[in-house]
């Protein structure tokens, strides 16, 4: 699996769309929405994935609410557009505006916090009910570096994820454990042939269908 999480996003997509068709890569853009209670580490997780850092923020990072990251999977350039949502209970009702049209969602909970896990379950339920039917949902038990004081058991969460058809990983934004992996797993699960077309984005597969590998879709 060729994984280069920090390759230049813009050039990747540009190459894929060169009309002369020299590039064999095709590119997809996906909207990924982050859900979860506040202070479970949603933005830390994304910052770790996008900037490869924890706490030491670059001057240029103006906000962690909207970030993009491009990764390569096999011959496909996958551009994630990550939308953070406010986790406070009072803003819960606004979430549908964010996950409308999202192809993927990561529901984050804190393994030290049972409440955040319960909230995560409600998010999953809501997504199944209201989001687009083939949305890829991942459950992330964050702060895995503090597993010695965990409250939510791994097996419990794993079982729940299997029952609901979710991707599941325990992650740690602090150590970087499983952070790239969960995004890669999502990228692999996403249907890449029509991901870009779904939302009428300007980035479209450009007549390279003939070069497409057979295993383009994992689902």
């Amino acid at each position, binding site marked *: 699996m060729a994984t280069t999480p920090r390759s230049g996003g813009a050039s990747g997509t540009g190459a894929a769309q060169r009309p002369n068709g020299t590039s064999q890569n095709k590119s997809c853009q996906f909207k990924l929405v982050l859900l979860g209670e506040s202070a479970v580490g949603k933005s830390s997780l994304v910052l770790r994935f996008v900037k490869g850092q924890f706490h030491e923020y670059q001057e240029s990072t103006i*906000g962690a609410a909207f970030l993009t990251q491009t990764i390569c999977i096999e011959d496909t350039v996958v551009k994630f557009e990550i939308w953070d949502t406010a986790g406070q209970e009072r803003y819960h009702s606004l979430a549908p505006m964010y996950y409308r049209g999202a192809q993927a969602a990561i529901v984050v909970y804190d393994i030290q916090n049972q409440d955040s896990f319960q909230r995560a379950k409600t998010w999953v339920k809501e997504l199944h009910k209201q989001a687009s039917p083939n949305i890829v949902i991942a459950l992330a038990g964050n702060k895995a570096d503090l597993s010695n004081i965990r409250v939510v058991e791994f097996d419990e969460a794993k079982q729940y994820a299997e029952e609901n058809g979710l991707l599941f990983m325990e992650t740690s934004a602090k150590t970087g454990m499983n952070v790239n992996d969960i995004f890669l797993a999502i990228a692999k699960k996403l249907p890449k042939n029509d991901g870009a077309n779904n939302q009428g984005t*300007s980035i479209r597969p450009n007549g390279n269908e003939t070069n497409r590998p057979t295993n383009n879709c994992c689902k």
Partner: protein
Amino acid sequence: MSKAARPSLRLGQQDLKCRTGCGFYGTPQNDGLCSMCFRDVRCVQRKLKQKTDETGPGSSSTSQIAAGSLERRSPQHGHGHGHQVKKPEQDTPGTLQKKKFTAVLQKTLQAGAQKITQQRGHVPDPTEGQFLLQLRQLRIPDDGKRKLKLEIQRLDSEIWKYMNGNGGKNINELSDLVQNAYTKVSDIVHNDPSFEIATNEDRDSAIDFFEKVVMTQNHKFLFSPYFTTDEDSDVKVQKRIRQLSWITAKHLDCSIDEVNSEARDLVYNAISELVGIDSYYSPQEKLQCTWRCCRHIFELLKRATGGPASADDFLPALIFVVLKANPVRLHSNINFVTRFTNASRVMSGESGYYFTNLCSAIAFIEYLNGESLGISGEEFDALMSGQQPYSSPWESALLGCESLHLISENMKRMEMLQKKNALISSEITSFEKKLIDFQREVTERVDTVIAKAPLNLLPIKTPAFLIGQARAHLHNENEAGHYQANMLSGGTLTTQSLTDVVGSVKPAMASEDSGLSLKDTSMGSMGRLSPLHQNLQPAEHLFASPIFNYTAFDAVSLLEEPSSEGNTDVLMLGSEFQGGLTNINYDFDLSDQSGENSTADESKLNLDEFDPLAQTDSITQPPSVLDSTTDSLIDSEVPGTAVLLPSPLKPEVASYRGFSNFDIPSISCNTGDFSSLGQEGTEAPK
């Protein structure tokens, strides 16, 4: 097309009047007609259109129509909208309408050439020229530009037709119409052979251009159309926000510091951008405005929290900004963007994210209740109805801004001055303390140094061979007789005076001491003589302070010589010792501990003899040197003056010092060498 239309942009004087010649002035908005004629014309036009719709589209080729429309265009009133021209290969739903439209044109042309231009209630717009310029600047092939322009004109006319149509209007239909056109243009731009060589960015800019032109030109139709409830919602939300003016950052769980001036400035920036949304025509510009507003908020939050803000911080801050900005026509603007911008723009991308946040913020504001602000329902109701008074730091800061600001600034300044004052006074006291300490330290040090290194009267160690010399010398002096006698008398006198001063008598030792006294004096003189010849250092040790401080002593000591007996002499000696006593006392403290050879021993010598007189004198007489000298001068005239003369010359005085009586204390020191001296002493005098 554009070339044909452009000369017509200028309006002549005759065009100011209504073109029907009714005498009233026409307005450009009414296509150069007065309001009455314009209404009539529109009625006729509508009827004609219905008629053509019934009859069906004409079969003439588009090129002919284009040519015809050009011909028939009135030069003064052409508006540069060649919407009559169509692409031959069109097959979209709009095509049918288009064809109908051209048919209408033909009909109207038949009816009267002047009425053609009334088809569009469109104003010659200076922005149109700009768009043409921009179109030329687009880095796409000319073929592509032409197609783009055709598409623009087509959508333009479609919108116009929909807006002026008679059927029931639905904003969603209109939105779909526009969105379909976007999809089509996007399709053309990406797949049409005429765009083949264009880069990806150029394609995007072409699509953007298309959207911008159409939206700017049709803003007046599409923004808050009369058949929607946008305006009502605007009023509603504005009223609601006004009611919610009591909401503070705390209610929203928001980290904005309302009273911090720096934070306020950034909030103001965000507010002005948010309010500015209304002043732009195209959805893109409105989105850019939102983007700038949100960037200001992120900047603000970054300073407040010290790191990149997450949505947990951002959304409350945005809600706060919307509440404090209370932008005009909020819903109209939001709906305009939602309906008529490229759908992908609000569904993805950074601007899309911010726009979604803005929509959520408005939704939150519209539906918020006490629970969502962390207060009880009753309190919320009371605050909303205005029954409960409130004080919001933001509003109060706004209202009392100037004066309060001034007061706070002055208060700050005063505080600063006060601090400075306190600092200065504390510094002063500490400096005073330091000075006192310094003084104490200096005195202490001096004391310790004095204690460590006291003025020590060391015993004079005269080498044995010198003593012989000294004896010989003395012998020579003795020949003169005068000196010898003098010395002897002086010796006794000094011992006497010493006894007086110390005042401690040991009768048991007296006899023994008195026996020794003569010997001692001689030895003392010898001891004192030796430094004069060989080594000055011991002499200095001995006499430094008393002699050099009180040069008069020398004179006095010399004075005493001639008159060896009598009161004056005794008096003088007393005074002399008084002067030198302090120094001698030092010596006593340390050197006397040996107890073997101090002056104290010698002082006990002859106390019996002159005790009463000397004692009274030393007590009654003030220890001033001057007095004693004057006394001595008065009492002994001749020798006093005679001896006084050489006194300023120090070396000579020093030489005489040896014979001064007050040196006697040092004589005792020689007792260390006593045995040797005794031997020689016994030899020498004889």
